[in-house]
């Protein structure tokens, strides 16, 4: 936009954009506000100004042991992401730097596994988990999350690695770097940003995964998704407490998410939109 925009037009656009943005954000905002209300306040009609109590947050911990599902979420999302990276990095690396005629087919096939509807394999997975004693275990769910996100991880890494220009590798070879030195001094530093982006996006995806994490856990390994879903049973109108639990469940990932807008586009469209 080289030309100057009239201030009037900019102000109009600003107002419209802010109104739209606030409407979209409103449910989250209202949840945060409600979490700071007392229970009677929470059901006393529309009110944007809470009394500012923190007792709900304390109650969520003391009455429902919030920390346990929270730790499960952290362990499961980080664990499955690191596992997926360990498996995917060599593969993506090989496909990006020594591609063959079949590389494209392999990538497309990996993508296709992502399209299998989860419910279609619910029964066998459930039975296998039951028979192997993996139901409600962190290990079982970690493996599950690793598998369902592996295609996206491979794809994201592949698109990042492929952007490392070939001439740089050739330059390092001319400069006398051996394979090991090439990896340590040239490739790794250039690949780290891509790996970090992949890590970030995958943690978000694993944290929010709400099919397997609800179906394959009950109490011990239940992450926040399952914990929150259990609030759906009508135990009563503890809305302020519910709001506090919700706020705590989404806050960490919301903040991570704000930092990963670009990677999100790329990762979720398999590199088709950048």
């Amino acid at each position, binding site marked *: 936009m*080289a030309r100057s925009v009239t201030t009037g037009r900019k*102000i109009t656009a*600003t107002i419209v*954009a*802010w109104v739209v*943005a606030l409407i*979209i*954000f409103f*449910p*989250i905002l*209202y*949840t945060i506000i*409600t979490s700071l209300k007392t229970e009677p306040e*929470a*059901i006393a009609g529309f009110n944007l100004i809470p009394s500012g109590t923190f007792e709900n947050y304390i109650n969520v911990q003391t009455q429902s042991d919030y920390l346990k599902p929270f730790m499960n979420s952290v362990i499961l999302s980080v664990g499955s992401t690191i596992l997926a990276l360990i*498996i*995917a990095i060599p*593969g993506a690396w*090989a496909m990006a730097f*020594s591609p063959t005629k079949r590389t494209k087919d*392999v*990538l*497309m096939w*990996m*993508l296709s*596994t*992502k*399209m*299998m*509807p*989860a*419910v*279609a*394999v*619910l*029964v*066998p997975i459930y*039975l296998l988990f039951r028979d192997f004693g993996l139901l409600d275990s962190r290990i079982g769910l970690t493996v599950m999350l690793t*598998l369902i996100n*592996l295609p996206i991880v491979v794809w994201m890494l592949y698109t990042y690695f492929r952007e490392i220009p070939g001439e740089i590798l050739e330059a390092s070879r001319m400069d006398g770097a051996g394979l090991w030195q090439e990896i340590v001094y040239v490739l790794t530093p250039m690949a780290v940003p891509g790996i970090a982006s992949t890590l970030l996006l995958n943690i978000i995806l694993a944290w*929010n995964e*709400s*099919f397997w994490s609800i*179906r394959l856990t009950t109490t011990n390994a239940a992450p926040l*998704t399952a914990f*929150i879903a259990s609030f*759906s049973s009508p135990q009563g109108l503890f*809305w302020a407490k*519910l709001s506090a639990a*919700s706020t705590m469940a989404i806050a960490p990932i*919301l903040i*991570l*998410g*704000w930092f990963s*807008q670009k990677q999100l586009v790329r990762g*979720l*469209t398999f*590199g*088709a*939109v950048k």
Partner: protein
Amino acid sequence: MATQNTKTLARLMMAPSVLLLLVWMIVPLAMTLWFSFQNYNLLDPSSDGFAGFFNYEFFYTDPAFFQSIWNTLVIVGGVLLITVVGGIAIGLLLDQPIFGQGIVRILVISPFFVMPPVAALIWKNLIMHPGYGVFADIANLLGLQPVDWFAQYPLFSIVIIVAWQWLPFATLILLTALQSLDSEQKEAAEMDGANFFNRFIYLVLPHLARSITVVILIQTIFLLGVYAEILVTTNGGPGYASTNIAFLIYRTALLGYDVGGASAGGIIAVILANIVAIFLMRAVGKNLDR
């Protein structure tokens, strides 16, 4: 530099990912296929053996089946319509120079990071609750009778919640695409006398076509399997009014303990997903050739 040696190494490096995904794809799917032709009920061990197409017939003749297919289509179609149209509109809005663009972007993108059970609970209790929700408060203010959304319009309510979750995704991708539109092209069109409407039809929309395709296909993959939102809000009801295919299979399998029937439903879901997948793979595959 592809000597025989590096080729072998490359294969070795790819092996873990490929093998894992191969097992992950084949084993459960083969089991589902096998179960779908068996009499297998977790509550009734006495019934077993080959069932032929009985499970498919059972699933197919269940009135809930067609209802759930219809509901699946309504959810996918409704959400796509809202998110694509809304995404283009908001994308165009955010592509303008505005004050506080960074914060506006963050606000708009946020719902995408809200885990589905939380999204469903917020909407169910804080927004759409007939007694204490914000919508009810607004209705009361206007002197109207509050609507019991999940009893009266269960499917529509679910569409709204899911659309709220996916609108940011569509917006973000379409905005990214809009920003990649060459501003000289826009200026050239302006010089050629095209007004805003014409620029949108002849310049912006064709430029967005690819991204819109990608948004539609990727969302469809996820929308076919909407689950947590239904579980938390309506639990598929009233009756089967808000049960989609995914939820029906879950009901058959884990509430009805009918492994055979659920497996048959699973195979049907795979076939449906494959139809979408073929189109998505084409769109993404083209990108590889660039």
